[in-house]
């Protein structure tokens, strides 16, 4: 029996700890932003002006906020693409390549079946996007189940192959003859375009990350599959002796993970670009890995981390356009945020993978 005063003090203690960790959290991000400001200053840019633009054009306006949501769609998908295989300690660093192949498959569908009505075509190219990313990741899955190549290395290298493959099609057989020197495919028909919501670029594809998160949580906590995955993750040898096929799970989870990243690629070509271009993604696959890692595979954590890194990604566009900085400068900020998170988490929970 716990006395009331103890309960109160416990609740109070809990709240205090929560507050402390919140302050610490904000302080850490402040540190990352501060270091980035110093870097900007060192390169002769005005960090105050940069940050004012950065935040007023992201969090500060309706349109800016909608742009954050636009970036969250691929980030959540690629993060879940990492989180799903990581349940059994598989490390999928190939989200970027899977995203590109998903976009490639979806583009093939959109260009080939452009006469189909929208209610068939959109589901079809979504499916193709999922299939493309999934099959691409399955190559790494097969290499892993055969014990040939670790999935970390193979997914990493396959990123480059995927991007080159997209380049091959965009510069070669699929190049739109009407767009002169621009390497891009023909524009998608309306039936292959995910509808936008209101005046923003937020599009109907947002249901994919939402569904992915809910399914991820549900399957993990409420089904036999989730239990078996936990068993494999906890002790693979014991799981194997209990008749759980680890190879089956490796292939399946790699396929699903890759498929989700492929869906992100489909969303980008269908809703954002309207066609396939080589500059499809500013590294969503890699940033998604960082999102998933920051969240420790927790569904709500993924949303929070994706929101944060989406701000940075959207803000990066601003820095590039308004301040003449190279587009990849924002990856410094991404890295700094990660550095501070990494340096805290490692101490506390140790190796998650």
């Amino acid at each position, binding site marked *: 029996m716990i006395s009331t005063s103890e309960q109160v003090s416990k609740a109070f203690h809990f709240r205090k700890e929560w507050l402390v960790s919140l302050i610490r959290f904000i302080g850490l991000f402040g540190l990352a932003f501060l270091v980035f400001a110093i870097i900007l200053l060192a390169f002769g840019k005005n960090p105050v002006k940069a940050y004012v633009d950065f935040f007023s054009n992201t969090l500060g306006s309706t349109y800016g906020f909608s742009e954050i949501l636009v970036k969250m769609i691929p980030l959540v998908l690629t993060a879940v693409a990492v989180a799903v295989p990581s349940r059994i300690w598989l490390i999928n660093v190939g989200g970027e390549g899977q995203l590109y192949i998903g976009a490639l498959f979806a583009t093939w569908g959109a260009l080939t079946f452009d006469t189909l009505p929208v209610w068939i075509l959109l589901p079809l190219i979504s499916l193709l996007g999922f299939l493309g990313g999934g099959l691409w990741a399955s190559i790494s899955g097969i290499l892993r189940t055969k014990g040939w190549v670790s999935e970390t290395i193979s997914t990493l290298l396959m990123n480059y192959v995927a991007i080159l493959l997209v380049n091959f099609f965009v510069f070669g057989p699929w190049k739109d003859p009407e767009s002169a020197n621009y390497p891009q495919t023909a524009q998608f028909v309306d039936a292959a375009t995910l509808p936008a919501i209101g005046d923003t670029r937020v599009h109907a594809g947002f249901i994919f990350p939402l569904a992915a998160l809910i399914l991820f949580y549900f399957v993990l906590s409420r089904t036999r599959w989730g239990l078996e995955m936990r068993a494999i993750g906890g002790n693979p040898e014991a799981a194997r002796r209990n008749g759980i096929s680890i190879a089956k799970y490796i292939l399946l989870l790699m396929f699903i993970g890759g498929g989700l990243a492929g869906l992100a690629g489909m969303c980008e070509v269908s809703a954002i670009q309207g066609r396939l271009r080589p500059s499809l993604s500013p*590294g969503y696959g890699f940033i998604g890995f960082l999102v998933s890692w920051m969240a420790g595979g927790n569904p709500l954590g993924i949303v929070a981390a994706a929101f944060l890194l989406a701000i940075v990604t959207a803000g990066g566009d601003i820095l590039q356009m308004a301040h003449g900085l*190279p587009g990849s400068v924002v990856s410094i900020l*991404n890295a700094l945020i990660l550095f501070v998170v990494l340096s805290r988490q*490692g101490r506390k929970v140790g190796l998650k993978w």
Partner: protein
Amino acid sequence: MVGSFLEGLLSGSILAGTPLLYATLGEVIDERAGIVNLGLEGVMLMGAVVGFTTTVETGNAAVGVFAGALAGALFNMVFGFLVIARRANQLASGLALMFCGVGLSALLGAPYIGSQIKGLNEIIILPLSDLPLVGATLFRYDILVYLVVPIAILVWWVLFYTRWGLSLRAVGENPAAAFAAGKNPYRLQYQALFIAGLLGGIAGAHLSLALTKTWAEWMTAGRGFVAVALVIFSKWHPLRAIAGALLFGGAISLQLQMQARGVPVSPFLLDMLPYLLSLGVLAVWGGARRHAAPASLGQVFRGTE
């Protein structure tokens, strides 16, 4: 025709394999100390950009190489702080380091895009360079090419025949045992990361000072990751890394030779060669040899509890 093709292929392999070998040697040292460094890509980029900009400013490529090496080593210390002092996850830290390198090198290099340099001088070994067929190409390289194999031998000797190398490998195999034997795992790992950073920086500097002689964003194009694959291929052994680097240099060179000769295959497909070769070779060669990996790879010593 065939002769000149082979000649070009061979000399191209050596030239393209050199930065790969420097990077691979660095990663071998990292991993022998028990640390997987996926940030090598970023370290190479820092070496490339600092080496290039220093060469533009000073007009001296040798200074550029030193600056690039030092930049790589210092940059790798950031990674060291995360994974050793803060015990952060090595894969995530490595990717974060790569990101940081991509951004920072883009920022540093932006004013220097299009700058011209003379690059590293070729050193012609006189009597040998007159040899028919091979002489003209095989013995006209910059100093870093000549040095890379001796450095590989040096790394092998240090790792396997010195007290320091033995301690380092002990840390990679079993840090607790090394600690019990009176070694300081953390200090050894910092030293390993510093040397690996030097080598990674040289790899990047060679890329921008001898191969391309220009700076472009993300010019390493995944070579850092290929080097990580090469470490597995070479069974964590510096001498086998020589063969591996030559093979991958060959793939890069073959692709360049075919493009130069107008072989009617899309350059994008040819560009895939090094990555596909990495995967293929690992699939055939790598799986069965996993036991060669240092036993405590990926884990950082947590003290004796």
